[in-house]
């Protein structure tokens, strides 16, 4: 080794995004960041230590392209893990995995920085009493209430209103709960990140949000660690500012996928379906940090891709075990112009329990589900024989179900320019009252169109008067 600095190392092997280094004396610690300055391209590449090969050699994951690397190149130790900016300075900004701003704005010096690795809050710090996070969106608050500090999975393909829903949640959390949101784009299309950035600017929620992206054009190391970057930023608002923070992860499956890509290159024996053998630990380490403490909470909304629609795939199975609620977005609902396109029959929540949400809320939610399920069954008959073939009770169920379906729609503040409807925030009490009265038949005389794209039930009555 021709290196004089005792803390510098040299490249001894490059296997795609995995790079091996040899050090003279002290090898770096686990998760320590190493920096290689590529003089030719005038770029720096960060590596993260994953494990030691022997007393002098370590194996690392590159957080950037390894093109042009060769044996003998020099790397410098940083004596700390990757640190990313946190605090108010990050609001309204867009970062990459390493915490570097990628929005081409002027301020690039951030005073507060934190390591992306930390332990999950201990048991004594956790808040044990479950509490509902009011979103102001009727269908969510009624059918799939969010747990403060909980994890919510969103199932559904691209282009069915996921982004609008996310932006509305960010807006409502910011204005009603005075909280901030962090968005992590993991392994999805780069275009989606740009679209989100532009749309957030338009709907004036960008200054309440931090955006972090490690999209599909980036190496697996970046895609894997971007979630931790976003989580670190969210944790600051929870622990230091005592806020209720929303953390959006789009898409959590890509995190596990990136992990499996890295795992094979690291030389680990693959487990079932080619995933990393420590899949449960990887996901567990991340999910355990997303929780509600005595100071504040991080509520996480995670989009989940189901590979080949196989719900028994190890990744969805592992993720589902951590979730508190599931929202299913349905394309057929969107095609009928019913927004948000959440399927009330397949969406559920751990909070749908009379001991947590109260008997009234529980009964109303279950009755809505029952009526909609019956309507779904009756649709086959209506399609074949027509509605006149139904018994009077079934006819009544159909009419009420259609009103419920319309009342489940809601105009969004962030979509006012597209929909032409003024956004509405509905409190949980008003939501429950509205659905309860529809089920009881109090509004059987009101035409179903009056329930479309409104906030509370009073609007339907006013319109009818």
């Amino acid at each position, binding site marked *: 080794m021709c290196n004089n600095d005792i803390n510098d190392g040299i490249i001894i092997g490059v296997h795609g995004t995995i790079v091996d280094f040899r050090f003279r004396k002290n090898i770096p610690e686990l998760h320590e960041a190493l920096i290689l300055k590529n003089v030719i391209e005038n770029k720096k590449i960060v590596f993260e230590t994953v494990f030691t090969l022997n007393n002098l050699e370590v194996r690392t994951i590159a957080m950037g392209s390894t093109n042009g690397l060769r044996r003998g190149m020099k790397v410098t130790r940083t004596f700390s893990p990757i640190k990313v900016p946190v605090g108010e300075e990050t609001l309204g900004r867009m970062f990459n995995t390493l915490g570097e701003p990628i929005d081409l704005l002027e301020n690039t010096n951030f005073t507060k920085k934190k390591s992306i690795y930390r332990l999950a809050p201990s048991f004594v710090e956790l808040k044990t009493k479950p509490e509902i996070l009011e979103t102001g969106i009727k269908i969510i608050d009624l059918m799939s209430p969010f747990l403060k500090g909980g994890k919510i999975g969103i199932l559904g393909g691209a282009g069915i209103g996921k982004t609008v829903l996310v932006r509305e949640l960010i807006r409502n959390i910011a204005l009603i709960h005075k909280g901030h949101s962090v968005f992590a784009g993991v392994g999805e299309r780069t275009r989606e990140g740009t679209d989100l950035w532009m749309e957030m600017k338009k709907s004036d929620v960008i200054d309440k949000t931090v955006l972090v992206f490690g999209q599909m054009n980036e190496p697996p190391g970046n895609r894997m660690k971007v979630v931790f970057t976003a989580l670190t930023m969210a944790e600051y608002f929870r622990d230091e500012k005592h806020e209720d923070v929303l953390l959006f992860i789009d898409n959590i499956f890509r995190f596990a996928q990136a992990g499996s890509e890295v795992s*094979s290159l690291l030389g680990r*024996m*693959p487990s*079932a*379906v*080619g995933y990393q053998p420590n899949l449960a630990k990887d996901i567990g380490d991340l999910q355990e940090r997303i929780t509600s403490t005595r100071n504040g909470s991080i509520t996480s909304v995670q989009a989940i891709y189901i590979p*080949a629609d*196989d*719900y*028994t*795939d*190890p990744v969805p199975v592992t993720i589902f075990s951590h979730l508190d609620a599931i929202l299913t977005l349905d394309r057929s609902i969107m095609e009928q112009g019913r927004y948000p396109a959440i399927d009330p029959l397949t969406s559920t929540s751990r909070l749908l329990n009379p001991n947590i949400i109260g008997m009234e809320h529980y009964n109303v939610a279950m009755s809505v589900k029952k009526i909609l399920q019956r309507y779904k*069954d*009756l649709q*086959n*008959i209506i*399609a*074949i*024989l027509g509605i006149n*073939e*139904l*018994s009077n009770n*079934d006819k009544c169920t159909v009419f009420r179900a259609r009103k419920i379906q319309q009342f489940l729609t809601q105009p969004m503040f962030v979509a006012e320019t597209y929909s032409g409807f003024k956004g509405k925030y509905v409190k949980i009490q008003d939501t429950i009252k509205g659905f309860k009265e529809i089920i009881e038949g109090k509004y059987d005389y009101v035409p179903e169109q009056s329930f479309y794209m409104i906030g509370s039930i009073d609007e339907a009555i006013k319109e009818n008067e």
Partner: protein
Amino acid sequence: MKNLNELKNKIEMLNNVAKLSKATEMIAMTRILKIKKIVKNFLFYKDKIRYILQKNNYINCCKYTPNKIHRKLVYIILPDTGFCGNIVINMLKKIDLYLNEQDYVILFGKKCSKEIKMKYNVISSLKFGKTLPKYNCVYPMVKVAKMFFFMKKISKVTLIYTKFSNITIQKAYIEEILPIKNNKTNKYFLQQKETLDDLIQYYLEIEMYNSLINAYISEQAARAISMYNTKTHALEVSKKLYKIYNKSRQEKITDEILDFTNWKLNNN
């Protein structure tokens, strides 16, 4: 390992079968619910008429007494379409036990009509239809029955149909409607003999319409049950196949990955 595409196609096919059977089951159930009330009211009326006829003073007059001809007029009521469980088989068993080759047969329903026509003396064959037959369709039936019986061409008029007990039980049933079995204790004393003729007309109409209603509701009940079973089995098999499909998919990927790993280990 099964062919994944083949499995996927099978799953899709089974799901379609389940969907279709569910729709058919629900249609049948709705029809049953709709006519259940009619049946209840009708049965009460029918029993009352029969009771009056059995216990009146003119019923023993020669016109309505049994004759010695060994021929019967039999109305057989079968469904037009399939998917209604064992109804047809049970009916055929009953028919074979009861009918003679020289008996006159009037057949309702298309199901197994060819077989019955080949074996028995079918004088008329009619469609049953997909909805509940209207009341006026019994007039020609009654006319033929009265004509054959009063002209002494036959000794009995019989209905063979499926009797509805409840949604799970329907039995093939033979009902002899003429001659009327007399109860010796007369309770009703009619002043004119003609009143009895009118009553007989009513009685035959109601008996025949009752058989049609029973056949119809039994068909719907049997269809609902058989479609429910089809749906349940299709979904069960589809669920099993879906598990096999997922397992095969995962096995395939795991095998490929293991092959790569083994190759790498051997080359190192």
